[in-house]
């Protein structure tokens, strides 16, 4: 009888220990999950107003102390273009044409609405200056200075014929594909597609 009871006690103790280990692992997982509160922004549009929204939100998130990752893909890749950048790569005829047609840098991007051949944007920029609203380049620089991570879609750049020498902050920008960005997005609580 005594032996039975003592073996039962040993069994119960073993189970408690196992449960304690499982609880500890769960707590660690919860802590890890709580730490994952990055903000990921996919900048797909190469339009001035949409990029403005992206960088405003990025700055706000950085102000809140969050880690911010921005993924520039397709038309959004033009935001990273450097006006004075020179490519050393040989380009196809269509890539050359795209290079000429697409905005030379973030400042040259058009408005998505009411652009009126650049006149609408001119009016908006004037009004923003009057109201002391930061312009797009300032927001971009600020985001960068506050530690935002810039990622550029490799395929989009190749398609549009942009060379890495033609891009801003080329040393600090990460060249990546969909999977590497998704692995970041999976660790983020907020992912925006703009």
């Amino acid at each position, binding site marked *: 009888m005594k032996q039975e009871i003592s073996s039962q006690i040993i069994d119960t103790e073993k189970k408690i220990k196992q449960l304690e280990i499982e609880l500890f692992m769960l707590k660690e997982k919860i802590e890890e999950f709580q730490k994952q509160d990055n903000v990921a922004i996919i900048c797909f549009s190469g339009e001035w107003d949409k990029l403005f929204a992206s960088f405003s939100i990025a700055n*706000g998130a950085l*102000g*809140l*102390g969050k880690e911010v990752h921005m993924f520039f893909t397709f038309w959004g890749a033009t935001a990273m273009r450097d006006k004075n950048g020179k490519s050393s790569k040989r380009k196809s005829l269509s890539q050359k044409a795209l290079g000429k047609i697409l905005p030379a840098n973030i400042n040259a991007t058009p408005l998505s609405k009411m652009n009126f051949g650049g006149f609408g944007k001119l009016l908006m920029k004037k009004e923003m200056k009057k*109201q002391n609203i930061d312009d797009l380049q300032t927001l971009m620089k600020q985001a960068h200075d*506050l530690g935002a991570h810039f990622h550029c879609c490799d395929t989009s750049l190749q398609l549009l014929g942009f060379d890495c020498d033609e891009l801003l902050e080329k040393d600090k920008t990460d060249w990546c594909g969909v999977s590497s960005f998704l692995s970041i997005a999976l660790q983020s609580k907020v992912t925006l597609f703009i």
Partner: protein
Amino acid sequence: MENIEDIELDCRGMKCPRPIIELAKAKRNASPGSIINIIADDLAFESDVKAWCQTTGNKIIDFNKEENIVKVSIEICEVS
């Protein structure tokens, strides 16, 4: 010895999200226990500063609003 001090920030004339950026920058250099006195006239600032404090774990110890001008004193509770 930690350097506890009062920091004054004048963000009048700045528009969202600039006042919060300035506040976040000031907080980076502030030791716990320091007070940041910030004044701003952006319409979004009132709700933004409350959200900022709630998210970052800092405390509003004084809040004053006259017309559109908001004056807030924030106690820094943790190191960034």
